[in-house]
């Protein structure tokens, strides 16, 4: 199945801004992160279809996943 992935800030470097990504049926956000080579500990805000979610969230076809890195400077 295909999900839409939106990356923000430094996650775009060497990847993309927005892309359709093929994931296995019933796969989770964690599986998607592995595919994108993003470590779990790098992920801050994580949205599935605009809602706050976790790496355990199961994905469905055409879901929109938004991934933001951790920002902590001042």
């Amino acid at each position, binding site marked *: 199945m295909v999900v839409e992935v939106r990356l923000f800030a430094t996650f775009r470097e060497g990847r993309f801004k927005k892309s359709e990504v093929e994931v296995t049926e019933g796969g989770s956000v964690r599986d998607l992160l592995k595919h994108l080579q993003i470590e779990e500990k790098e992920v801050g805000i994580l949205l599935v279809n*605009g809602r706050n979610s976790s790496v355990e969230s199961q994905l469905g076809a055409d879901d929109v996943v938004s991934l933001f890195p951790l920002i*902590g400077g001042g």
Partner: protein
Amino acid sequence: MVTKEERGLLKRVFPEKRSGELALQKAATIASRTKLPLRAVEWFALDTGICPSRYQRNIGAFGIEGQKRLLESKIVIVGLGGLGGCLLEELARAGVGEITAVDPDVFDETNLNRQLLATEEMVGAKKVDEAESRLKKVNRAVAFTGFSVSLEQVAESVWRDADLVFDCLDNIEGRFVLEERCSAADVALVHGAVAAWYGEVGVVWPGSGMLKKVYKGQGRGIEEDVGAVGFTAATAASLMAAKGAAILTGKITAKEQKMLYFDLLEDEWQTIEF
């Protein structure tokens, strides 16, 4: 803000005409004659329909009542770096009456790229000391207290007595501690964080645990790799100041769990709901 006796005293020294403006020098003379704090004189002036000239351009945004509320407000700014230095300046000019700042650090050369309070001659000086001397130049009506300690060492009463706290820290772990302290003290926390071109700003209402949702318990932000620049910090600080002023003047009351994320390079502005 002023007692009955103080009101009587101020009534005697104030001009008969209850309209127009109050010049800074006149306000200072009244404060000195009555031995009352300058901000009490300014508050009384507003209460009787006279606007201190220094706040004249604020009234369209805050109203007279809002300006009085700002003068009555007590805030705590945690961190006097890129976010905190800018926020301090903006809220002091807006007329927030009492500001407490917490920062254990001294200025170093890496601060010069973005921190409003950092100047070449201040390298090595305590940040809270420079904040105090800056406030004396910008708005001497502000009652300032500086704590050159880490936030863990700040007395519980400081959080409890605050109307609003501002998270201007430069690391994630401290932000979890601050969120807990503010939640325990039942005080709202205006959060801001930046890295390179990117930033986020939101209000953490007590008990919402929003920062835990934002950071997922992790401790290392991208700023450790990509740094932070002045215009991004100033943007986030101004957004925080606007949120703060809106809350303190009673213009925001709905306790929404929202975070504004921005990317100044791509000109992206996104509100995320939790």
